[in-house]
């Protein structure tokens, strides 16, 4: 073996030791969410942010992005310059709006799926249209944000939504993998949990997600060790690690309804879900629909998201399956090469004045 390789490896190992020691001894807070934005609207904890176009030829149709409610914070979509979905979209000419549901407290435990679907989302859509001065918008739902958006769309089919993208959003909950198994009504008493805690505590959310793939922390740490000689990798790790360990609670009534109606009864795809007394019929969705599944997703396996394609009445509908898991589908190098250009192109083709 060349002596150079051994020396190189020893040098890297010394750098690894120095960088990991610094991570442990002198942890610095990574800067996240750096893309410029303005607050357009707020309702209780929820905030609607506008990210103005930064380049490219501007598209006339604004994009409203609806991520998950509770569980985690949405800065994963704007982690760091050069590694941000939001930055990619605004540089590609999109007027981008993000609905940040916020961090809920005890006072929000009465929030329900009904309120999100029939009050918050329609109001946010109107605010985006008014702020952008546009006749229509494109709706982009990620994870739980996708079924919530689909419900809002099905109940308000006259809202001027030009296109709808479901990114790893569960629709057929019978196919939602381990969560479906663990939250089966024969073994999981959600009433007792919410009656005891009032909400779904952040610590329990963390436990549930960590249990989905118990080896995640181990592989994250081994990958960190292998790459710790590289300062850029360490910076990226810090930002991602901050996000991956920041779990937020879910409002009690919302979580109760979410588990019972969606996971345990699978009412959405069965056409049995009722919101404020009205049936949610996904067949009422007629706008162009793109569904993106992630091949290794264990939170929303591809079949779970793909079910939307069969359920809607849209003439124009497309399903794509990309490599990655639930998070790597939307954030990181793989996402920058696969999902971001795919979604951006699809939306650009459907953007019109």
């Amino acid at each position, binding site marked *: *073996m060349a002596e150079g390789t051994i020396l190189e490896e020893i040098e890297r190992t010394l750098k690894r030791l120095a960088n990991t020691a610094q991570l442990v001894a002198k942890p610095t807070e990574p800067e996240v969410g750096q893309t410029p934005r303005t607050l357009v609207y707020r309702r*209780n904890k929820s905030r609607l942010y506008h990210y103005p176009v930064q380049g490219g030829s501007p598209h006339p149709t604004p994009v409203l992005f609806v991520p998950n409610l509770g569980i985690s914070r949405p800065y994963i979509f704007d982690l760091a310059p050069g590694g941000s979905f939001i930055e990619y979209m605004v540089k590609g000419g999109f007027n981008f709006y993000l609905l940040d549901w916020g961090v809920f407290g005890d006072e929000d435990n009465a929030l329900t799926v009904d309120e999100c679907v029939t009050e918050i989302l329609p109001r946010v859509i109107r605010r985006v249209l008014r702020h952008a001065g546009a006749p229509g918008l494109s709706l982009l739902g990620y994870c739980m944000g996708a079924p919530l958006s689909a419900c809002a769309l099905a109940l308000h089919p006259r809202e001027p939504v030009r296109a709808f993208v479901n990114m790893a959003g569960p629709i057929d909950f019978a196919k939602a993998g381990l969560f479906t*198994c663990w939250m089966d009504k*024969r*073994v999981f008493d959600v009433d007792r949990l919410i009656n005891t805690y009032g909400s779904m505590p952040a610590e329990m959310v963390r436990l549930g997600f960590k249990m989905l793939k*118990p*080896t995640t922390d181990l592989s994250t740490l081994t990958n960190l060790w292998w790459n710790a000689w590289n300062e850029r990798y360490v910076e990226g790790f810090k930002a991602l690690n901050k996000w991956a360990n920041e779990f937020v609670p879910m409002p009690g009534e919302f979580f109760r309804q979410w588990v019972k109606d969606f996971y345990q009864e699978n009412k959405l795809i069965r056409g049995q879900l009722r919101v404020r007394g009205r049936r949610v019929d996904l067949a009422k969705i007629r706008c162009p629909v793109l569904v993106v599944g992630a091949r290794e997703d264990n939170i929303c396996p591809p079949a779970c998201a793909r079910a939307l394609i069969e359920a809607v009445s849209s003439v124009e509908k497309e399903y794509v399956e990309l490599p990655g898991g639930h998070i790597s589908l939307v954030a990181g190098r793989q996402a920058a090469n696969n999902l971001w250009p795919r979604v951006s192109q699809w939306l650009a083709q459907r953007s019109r004045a």
Partner: protein
Amino acid sequence: MSSSQTPDEIFRLWRDSMAKGAESWAKVLGQGQRPDVYQFWRPFFDQGMEAWSRLLTQGAAPDLLESWKKFQDAWIEAWSKVLTQAMGTENFAAALGKHLDQHLSAIGPARKQMAEVGEEMLRVLNLPSRRQVADLAELVVALESRIEALEDKIEALLHRERPAGD
């Protein structure tokens, strides 16, 4: 392991032994036997130590460390599959549900008692309780919603009164 083996052959050997190990673990977990933590970690350290010792003493092939990394990833992935398989069973879900029930049985009365004691203390000190603050916040949220609903109605009325083309 002979020193004439190429890293790819070593990697194949690792992978095969891992597959066998993972298979036997899956059987053990299925039978509800207690897993041996030492066995779980052993291949990881054994292979790592061997790679380093070869690198430093025999002048190993330059891609040996790369193969060790591959081994690590494959080893973790194999265990991940085993655990996912074990956790996706009805038995595991039932055990998890039972554990949660036990936890709630223990924590429920304790939380209730602590809340009562806390509220009493705050009452004596003439301070608002957590519940009272939350109630107040709920009231503010409800007021905010009503104002918004009024705004929407006013806007709708204005739109109706505005002549077409305005």
